[in-house]
């Protein structure tokens, strides 16, 4: 019944889901860094940076991820010649997909962190300023550590959405789960079974993430 699963080796079912995990992990880290930078820009005292942060978030949030991912391949790679340091089509597609996912997800990470910054009581920032800390010290030593702890829940939501969004990378031929599912479901007779197998794979990937990070967010929340 499950014979067809082993007929595929480029990618195999494990290889495909491993690719999904790699895409999720790397773009997760990337968008956390870029999103935090964007959030810092949006609350910074420099008007131009604030404007850039706001514009970036509002533009990127409203473009479909599919458009962004497709653009990284057809626009960035083909026209702008951004090859991401590899001429191998597969490696290049993988890196471009990460670039697109980071660019898109960072906008949501930024908004989550900014809402976290708003939950930190005013007194914290005032006290930090009173003892003479600069803006970057106030932000990195006082505000962000508390903000991060209060936004683990929302960030977990973003991570789960990111896990699901990695399937869009199939649009530029990255051999991950949706890519393999498309091949299988078109060639094999067991439509329902294939659907169930891949759905199960994603439930396994997203459910623990939600449970673990949900538990963590309760544990680490700043008691006020």
């Amino acid at each position, binding site marked *: 019944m499950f014979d067809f699963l082993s007929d595929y080796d480029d990618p195999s079912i494990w290889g495909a889901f491993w690719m999904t995990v790699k895409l999720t992990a790397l773009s997760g880290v990337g968008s956390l860094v870029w999103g935090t930078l964007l959030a810092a820009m949006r*609350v910074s005292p420099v008007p131009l940076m604030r404007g850039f942060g706001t514009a970036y978030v509002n533009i990127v949030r*409203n473009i*479909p*991820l599919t458009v962004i991912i497709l653009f990284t391949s057809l626009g960035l790679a083909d026209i702008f010649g951004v090859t991401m340091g590899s001429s191998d089509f597969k490696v290049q597609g993988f890196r471009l997909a990460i670039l697109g996912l980071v660019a898109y997800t960072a906008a*949501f990470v930024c908004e989550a962190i900014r809402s976290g910054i708003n939950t930190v009581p005013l007194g914290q920032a005032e006290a930090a300023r009173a003892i003479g800390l600069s803006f970057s010290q106030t932000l990195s030593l006082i505000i962000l550590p508390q903000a991060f702890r209060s936004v683990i829940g929302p960030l977990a*939501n973003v991570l789960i959405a990111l896990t699901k969004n990695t399937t869009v990378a199939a649009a530029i031929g990255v051999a991950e789960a949706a890519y393999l599912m498309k091949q299988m*479901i078109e060639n094999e007779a067991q439509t329902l079974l294939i659907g169930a197998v891949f759905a199960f794979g*994603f439930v396994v990937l997203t459910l623990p993430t*939600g*449970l673990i990070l949900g538990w963590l967010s309760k544990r680490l929340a700043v008691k006020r």
Partner: protein
Amino acid sequence: MSSVLYDAPGPRAKRRNVLLSVAFFILLALALWWIWQTMDDKGQLKWALWKPFTESQAWTTYLLPGLADTLKAAALAMVIALPLGAFFGISRLSDHRWVRVPAGAVVEFFRSIPVLLLMLFANEFYARYTGVGTEQRPLYAVVTGLVLYNASVLAEIVRAGILSLPKGQSEAAMAIGLRKGQTMTAVLLPQAVTAMLPAIVSQMVVIVKDTALGGVMIGFTELLNTRSTLAAVYANVIPSFIVVAVIFIVINFLITSFASWLEGRLRRGKKSTGVVLGPATVAGTEATGAGGSI
């Protein structure tokens, strides 16, 4: 809020801010210059590539039909998903375990798998087991995928909306002798609906964005799909991408603005006793929640 993070700038801070502004401006300018330069090198700035967008033909043959399909799929998905979502959302609040648990399982299941998988599956399912014509199939598949996913998201919105009402509402309804069904339809739902309207409207943004998946993966002729036909005819990859992105931004910006206008109006109006649910409130309601408006 942000001004609390730093003092009103003195002379030194002012100087530093100006310096940072200039440095950031130079960085941005360099990036823009590189983009402009590369586009020029690759001939993407040639007027011939942009000209189609000033003429009616590119719009009437490619962009507008594509946009119409995008909006049609999104509207259909919303109209079908709403009652389905309300049904599952209310079922999750049922007093009977045998209603609550299955409804919860269905909602959590469809929220945790990607829309793309649902679309691919629906597409193949219709091809093999139903008589849906090849012409119509992509639309059916896209709408099915969107409905399954968004109904479960809307179910959570409905649930959060009803839970946001003060307990006194249902207690008062029970005290005057209403049955459970009456309490729900006459007291709770009317108030909850106003509270969750902004969140429902913002979900429309997600639906509009997700239609683009169907265009690339299962050949649904929506905006992103007709873009590639257009780009093949006029050989204008970058201009067509920019135009399509701008169209999406404008549509979604209008929807978002409408949602926040609605939210502000409801907050001021005080018609309902519940909390007004913006997109952010719903995204954070459930620890195991499967992503808010992404």
